[in-house]
């Protein structure tokens, strides 16, 4: 289960994720991003209620980071201990901007 709450304002978007970002839900996030990201220069994710991430979720974050490097910035906020561990193990904590 993944709930995605999107707040958009001009070139800015905040995506708050709740639940699990895994094999079955990653396509849902990918769709939401592909639909909403085009004009965005300031993208942030709120991971406060994200309890789980697997490599399927990492793939979406990496491809989104690549897009945002070309058109603006991307920040991830409120990362839980469990999710942070996966970021650390995979070196994602070095390539993502985590606040």
């Amino acid at each position, binding site marked *: 289960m993944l709930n995605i709450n999107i707040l958009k304002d001009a070139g800015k978007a905040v995506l708050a994720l709740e639940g699990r970002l*895994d*094999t*079955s839900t990653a396509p849902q996030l990918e769709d939401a991003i592909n639909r909403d990201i085009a004009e965005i220069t300031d993208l942030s994710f709120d991971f406060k209620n994200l*309890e*789980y*991430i*697997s*490599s*399927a979720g*990492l*793939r979406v974050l*990496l*491809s989104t*980071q*690549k897009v945002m*490097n070309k058109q603006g910035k991307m920040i991830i906020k409120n990362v839980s*201990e*469990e999710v942070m*561990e*996966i970021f650390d*193990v*995979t*070196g994602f904590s*070095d*390539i993502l901007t985590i606040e």
Partner: protein
Amino acid sequence: MKKTFECDAKIEYLNKATAFLEETLEEIGCNMKQIVQLSVVLEEVFVNIAHYAYAKADSAGNIIPDTGSGQMSLTLVAENGNLSMIFEDEGRPYNPLEKEDPDVTLAVEDREIGGLGIYIVKKRMDDVSYEYKDGKNVLSLMKKL
């Protein structure tokens, strides 16, 4: 403690396998952090087996995911403070541990999308081994609890 879960090697059974793992880990007194860590390991291995173990190859020899079907099983063994997760399938022989580790120090632009799943498994577990035995892929993963 030893318990086995069997299912068709299909992504749609991942949730059931995860529930089996979580229930068993709760029974033996694992904390939430351990449960989340081991659920990630389960997902990474399960997804590989479901997509590729029974997949057929095209005429050029490329494996096409999700083109076959067969059984898989997960056996959990808890003893002496260790938890073992043993995955078995009767698909084509494949040792996922031979896959080269991704370079996790590369910059964003040089990072490839994918290849991280089995790397997470290796990093998360304390011992990993593979054998092809009696027509089965047997992947054994051990974690000290």
